[in-house]
C-alpha cells in the first residue's frame, strides 16, 4: 500500500500548469468487494490462530505451559510437553502479596516468607495473588504472563516454569507514587536447590527487607520537591529471606 502511494507521489504528479481534472472514476464494485472480503477472511484467520495459541497457553489444564526465556514461543511448549514434568501432586502453592509498594511471598508449606520469588523448575506453580490496597499486576516479562491483582479477592494463577534462571518480576498495573519500584527477582532453580533454599530460609529469623519505596520516602532526596502529600508506603516486609539484590538495576534476562 505504501508502495502504491509512493509510486503515485513519484510518478503521477500533475504537470506544472495542468489544472485539468483526473480521470472520472467513481468506483468499482468488484474491486470494493474484493478488498472487503480479503481483509475479512484474514481477520477471521488471525482470530482463529490466536485462539489456538491461547488454548495452548492456558486451557491445557495441569499440563499447561508457559513459555520461558526468549525461546520461540510457539515451538517450546509443543516439543517439551512430552518431557516428564514432576508429578502433578506436588503443586507448589505460594501466596503472593502485593502492596504499596512491595512484593511479599509466603510459602505456606514451609511457613517462610521472602521478598524474592523462588520457584522449583518444571513443577506446577499455583499462585494465590492478593492485593492489600490497590490494583497491582503480576508480570514476568520473560514468562509472557500477566495477571492483574484485584484487592479483596484471591486470584488463582498457574503456570509451569521450564528454564532455570533469574528473571524480573514487575508490577504491570499502575499503583501510585512508587509504582516503578514495585519489582523484584524471580529465581527458577532445580527442585533440589529449591528444597535447600526452603530449608535454610526456615532457620533464619524474620528481618526487615530493604524496600526502595519506604527508603526513598524516609529520605526524600529529589532535586525539585513540591511537598505534595502522597500515600505513605507500607513499612518494609518482615521476611525470612530478604531479596539478595534489593536495588539491582533493571536487569532483563
Amino acid at each position, binding site marked *: 500500500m505504501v508502495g502504491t502511494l509512493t509510486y503515485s507521489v513519484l510518478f*503521477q504528479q500533475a504537470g506544472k500548469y495542468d489544472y485539468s481534472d483526473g480521470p472520472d472514476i467513481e468506483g468499482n464494485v468488484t474491486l470494493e468487494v474484493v478488498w472487503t472480503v480479503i481483509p475479512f477472511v484474514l481477520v477471521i484467520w488471525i482470530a482463529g490462530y490466536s485462539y489456538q495459541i491461547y488454548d495452548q497457553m492456558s486451557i491445557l489444564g495441569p499440563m499447561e505451559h508457559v513459555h520461558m526465556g526468549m525461546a520461540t514461543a510457539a515451538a517450546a511448549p509443543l516439543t517439551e510437553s512430552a518431557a516428564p514434568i514432576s508429578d502433578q501432586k506436588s503443586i507448589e502453592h505460594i501466596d503472593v502479596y502485593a502492596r504499596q509498594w512491595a512484593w511479599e511471598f509466603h510459602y505456606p508449606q514451609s511457613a517462610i516468607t521472602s521478598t524474592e520469588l523462588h520457584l522449583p523448575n518444571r513443577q506446577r506453580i499455583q499462585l494465590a495473588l492478593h492485593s492489600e490496597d490497590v490494583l497491582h499486576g503480576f508480570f514476568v516479562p520473560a514468562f509472557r504472563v500477566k495477571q492483574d491483582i*484485584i484487592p479483596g479477592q484471591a486470584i488463582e494463577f498457574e503456570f509451569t516454569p521450564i528454564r532455570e534462571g533469574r528473571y524480573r518480576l514487575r508490577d504491570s498495573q499502575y499503583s501510585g507514587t512508587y509504582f516503578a519500584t514495585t519489582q523484584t527477582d524471580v529465581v527458577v532453580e532445580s527442585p533440589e536447590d529449591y528444597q535447600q533454599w526452603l530449608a535454610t530460609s526456615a532457620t533464619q529469623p524474620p528481618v526487615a527487607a530493604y524496600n526502595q519505596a519506604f527508603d526513598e520516602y524516609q529520605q526524600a532526596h529529589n532535586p*525539585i520537591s513540591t511537598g505534595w502529600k502522597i500515600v505513605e508506603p507500607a513499612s518494609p516486609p518482615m521476611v525470612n529471606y530478604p531479596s539478595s539484590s534489593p536495588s539491582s538495576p533493571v536487569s532483563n534476562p
Partner: protein
Amino acid sequence: MTNLSVDAIAQVEQPLPGAPNNWKRFFSFSTDHKVIGIQYLVTSFFFFLIGGIFAMIIRGELITPEADLLDRAVYNAMFTMHGTVMLFLWTFPSLVGLSNYLVPLMIGAKDMAFPRLNAAAFWMVPVFGVILMASFLVPGGPSQSGWWAYPPVSLQNPTGNLINGQVLWILAVAISGVSSIMGAVNFVTTIARMRAPGMTWFRMPVFVWTVFAAQIIQLFGLPALTAGAVMLLLDLTVGTSFFDPAKGGDPVLFQHFFWFYSHPAVYVIILPIFGIFSEIFPVYARKPLFGYKVVAISSLIITGLSGIVWVHHMFASGTPGWMRMVFMATTMLISVPTGIKVFAWVATIWGGKLRLNTPMLFALGGLVMFVFAGVTGIMLASVPFDIHVNNTYLSWGTFTM
C-alpha cells in the same frame, strides 16, 4: 465536480457574510457556528501547547533512568495531566471546532440546530480547562492516578482534603462529558434534520458522514463515562462504595464504565480525521473519491462495532476466557471497515493528477502513519500477544498514533 480552477478561487477575497469584523465577538457568547468553531479551535490549540509542555517535562525526566528532574509524585501528575489535557482539551474540542465550522456550511444549513446549546457547550470547555489547571494549586497537587483513574488508586486521598486534585479532575471530566453530549445532540439533530432541500443522505460530503458517525458514538458512549465519573466523585467525596473494594465495591466495574466510552472515543477522534482525508485526497488528486457510498457506510459500521469492543482493554484484568475471545474477534472485525476506507483512498490517489501541497502532504503522511498504527492495533487485539504487551509502550504507541 466543477471545473473551477484553483487559482480563480484563491484570488477572490473571501468575505465573511454578515459578520461584524470585530475580534471581540470571539470572546462573547456568540451563537454563530463559525465563531464557535473558531473559539473551539483556538481554545483547544492553547491547551495543546500546555499539554505539549507537560510532555516535554516528561521527556526531560526520561533522559536518565534516575528521578533527577522530577519527584515521583510530580512525574505521575505530569503524565496524568498530559493525557487528560490532550484528550479532553485538545483532540475532542479541536475536531468539534472544525466540525462546528464546516458541517452547517456543507449541508446548507443556516446554523446548527440549537445555536445557544452550541455556545453553552463551548463555554464549558474553558471552564473545565481552568478547573483542571487549578488542581496544580490545591494541596497535594493534581491527580496522580493516570488519565484512566482506576480506583482504588484514584480513591486514595493522602491529603485528607475534600478539595483535592482528584476531585477537581473528576469534576473536569464530568463537565467535559456533559459538554460533549450537548455537542453530540446538536450535531446529530443538525445533520439528520437540517440538510438543504435536495441534499439526500448519499449526497452529503463524506466529512459530514464521519462527523455524524462520530457524534452518534458520543451519544451512546459518553453517558457511561459520565455516570462512572459521577459515581467515582461520590465515592471520593461522600463515601459511597461503588468502586472501593475495602467497602465491598468492585474496582473492575469502573474499568467497564471507563472503556465502554474511552475505546469508542478513539473512533470519535479518528472518524472526522478519516473525513478530512476523504475530502483532501480527491481535491489534490483531481479525481472523485473512489467508492463514495462504501466509504460513507463504513463510517457507520465503525460506529456500530465500536460499541462492542471495549473489553479488549481489560484482557489482563481478570476477564474470563470466553469474554477475551469474543472481544478479540469484534476488535479485529473493526479493521475491515477501516481497511475499506484505506483502500478507497489509495484507489482515489492512484492514476490521479497529484498536487503535493501542504494539506496533501499532511494527509499522505497521516495516512501512512495510520496504516502502521492500525497494524499494531490488530496485533494488540490478539489475546495471547496482548497479555504480554498490555500496559506497555506498544499499546501507548498504538494509541498515540
